[in-house]
């Protein structure tokens, strides 16, 4: 079990989780952008992520590139199946990415780029959620190819997961702003964190209730003995994280809400992992069926094991450099 394919599955799962957490809060700020007043408030929110957002997004390239290298068959099946959501995500990321740069270079069109930032962030988040929902629902595979139509991704469930990710990212963004700002932006962020926090908890609950009915595989994971015992800590910890979030918000703690939101994401992700493993595309492909030959996995693993820890180190260092509150005008300067 503990072989090259497993190591690579763990690495890619880690890259995707890193992406979701890191880019989640800066996408969330884009989602909340319309709630902030044009001008200083938005500048402050944006400055709180400007130094780090691009590094955050690179995890997505690493996840996608890693998937193609390590699990080419999964990559080849998933992307055609999720054609529309992936395209939507890319378009959203293009607009929000350039908006970081362009809105500070333009005075007349600043509001336009504000709009592009908000719309692009929301579209990217929604598309990622839809893609996740479609993945959970299962992708038909015949031979070595996707065998469905190009609207198959669309269902009430994938729309629900799309909504869930938008709300969840907004929670990450709101709690990030609670941590990193003060004044009116922080007060608005507390209010937004309440709404999106309750929304996120409700949606996590809803999706968790629906999922076991989608696939007998998932049901078996959670409700058969002794799996139940192994899986039980996840919902218990979710309840604790939820409590931390709500207490933190009502006592106006500054850092705990973000920590709680991150915990909720990590636990939901682990929950998904429990559903999925050992499949990379349940119920069609296991990680071993989709894995590239050992020569490919080994070759790239050398580089990944050297460089990813280094990347993590200087990422931590960059966040350390930009610790503390951000001001409305001067960024972290």
């Amino acid at each position: 079990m503990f072989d090259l394919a497993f190591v690579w599955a763990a690495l890619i799962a880690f890259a995707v989780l890193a992406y979701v957490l890191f880019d989640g809060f800066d996408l969330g700020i884009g989602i909340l952008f319309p709630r902030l007043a044009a001008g200083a408030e938005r500048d402050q929110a944006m400055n709180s992520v400007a130094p780090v957002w691009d590094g955050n997004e690179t995890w997505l390239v690493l996840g996608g590139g890693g998937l193609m290298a390590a699990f080419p068959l999964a990559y080849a099946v998933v992307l055609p199946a999720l054609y529309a959501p992936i395209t939507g995500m890319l378009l959203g990321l293009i607009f929000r990415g350039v908006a970081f740069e362009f809105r500070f270079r333009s005075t007349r069109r600043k509001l336009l780029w504000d709009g592009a930032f908000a719309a692009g962030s929301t579209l990217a988040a929604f598309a990622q959620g839809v893609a996740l929902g479609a993945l959970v629902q299962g992708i038909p595979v015949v031979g070595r190819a996707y065998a469905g139509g190009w609207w198959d991704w669309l269902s009430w469930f994938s729309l629900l997961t799309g909504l869930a990710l938008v709300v969840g990212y907004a929670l990450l963004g709101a709690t990030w702003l609670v941590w990193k700002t003060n004044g009116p932006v922080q007060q608005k962020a507390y209010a937004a964190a309440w709404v999106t926090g309750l929304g996120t908890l409700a949606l996590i609950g809803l999706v968790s209730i629906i999922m076991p009915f989608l696939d007998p595989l998932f049901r078996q994971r959670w409700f058969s003995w002794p799996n139940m015992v192994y899986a039980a800590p996840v919902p218990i910890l979710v309840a604790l994280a939820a409590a931390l979030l709500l207490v933190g918000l009502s006592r106006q703690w500054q850092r705990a809400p973000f920590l709680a939101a991150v915990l909720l994401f990590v636990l939901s992700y682990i929950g998904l992992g429990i559903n999925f493993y050992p499949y990379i595309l349940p119920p069609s492909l296991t990680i071993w069926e989709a894995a590239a030959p050992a020569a490919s996995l080994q070759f790239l693993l050398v580089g990944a094991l050297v460089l990813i820890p280094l990347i993590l180190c200087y990422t931590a260092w960059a966040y350390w450099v930009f610790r503390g509150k951000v001001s409305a005008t001067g960024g972290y300067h």
Partner: protein
Amino acid sequence: MLFDALLLARLQFAFTVSFHIVFPALTIGLASYLAVLEVLWLITGRAVFLAVFNYWKKIFAISFGMGVVSGLVMSYQFGTNWSVFADKAGPIVGPLMGYEVLSAFFLDAGFLGVMLFGMDKQGRGLHCFATLMVAAGTLLSAFWILAANSWMHTPVGHAKNAAGQFVPADWWSIIFNPSFPYRFVHMVLAAYLTTAFVVGGIGALHLIGDRSNPGARLMFSMAMWMAALVAPLQVVAGDLHGLNTLAHQPAKIAAMEGHWQTRAGQPLILFGWPDMAAETTRWAIEIPKAGSLVLTHAWDGTVKGLTAWPPDERPNATILFWSFRIMVGVGLLMLLIGAWSSWQRYRGQLTGSTLLLRFAVLMSPAGFVAVLAGWVTTEVGRQPYTVYGLLRTAQSVSPVDRAAVAASLVAFIVAYAVVYAAGTVYMLRLMLKPPQLDEPDIDPGLPQRAAGITPVPALGEASGRE
């Protein structure tokens, strides 16, 4: 059907990769240029080097950001539109591109922030080191991407497994495949020339207004050295690359030259119109036997014509013939400006000729034209294969509806039109400002960030804001 899913997928790839390649071509060159400027500044201490460094650094940041955003699209397109290719060639192309992402992520992300924002905070030595590492990072990115691309042209070092996948057998020969060294050198020189002509054109533009502007003089002078030295070098590299192509992809050469019949003493066709249906090059203006001389270095060398291959094995000669001539034509103009400027320099009047300056301004986008024409030549020339001789393009495409490919193509065209128009405007706006001797650094109040940056200003101040 005129626009089937295959053609639409090819158009989408051509469109997005063409937009993408423009930015790396500039960033690779600019990164090295910035490194040279900073090293010269550290050695000589002359303020003008720092001024020009700061001037181009701002443009570099925008170009880098746009390159990363368009690169993100590329990295997912292999799956959305070319899933069968991704499945079959993924075990080989995937790890090569994986190394590209890792090394670019590491070197660029780690040091770009220091380079862009850290001059005051990090000290000159560390800052210069960061600039050198960014330059090395861009070259390393090019190394891995071109290794993957070259393997698709001259695939070696692999086996096939039961599932029909290409499986790596020998990584060394996969990376250093027969066309890789030539393509890598040719592309890096092209990126350097592209940058040189942008820098030289902008320098010339500001010299026309003010001959004494020291920053503009430095830009123009350095760029003209590049034109004089690198353009001839590029001709040699291009010729070697062509001979390598003749050895491995003779059909591509036949299409580029408009040769249809295999014969000894092929003419060199200067202009004409290759007609794919009629299997002839119409209205050809040719030099007898010179084609064989160029390709085989012998007057009577035998050179294959396109009819040596069945019609479904031929690349599109009409496109190749002309894209190749555009690239060569631009290259000749580059040689001309290199020679002209050397003559002016020899006479001690480098900036004396307004005509030369105007010519340089006109030539500032020349490198982009040549790069695009060159890539069209090599990529269209690989057709009808994605992995040359082994995997056909028609068998590489995703099982996706035509409507989906068409819709996403339109969406990308609209999005790129908006985004790149705006980005180009912002870059041009910076370039239209004359360089100042006290050229300001990037405005510290401006959170201008390109992808993968972890900037490092204000270590002390940041912590003071709790």
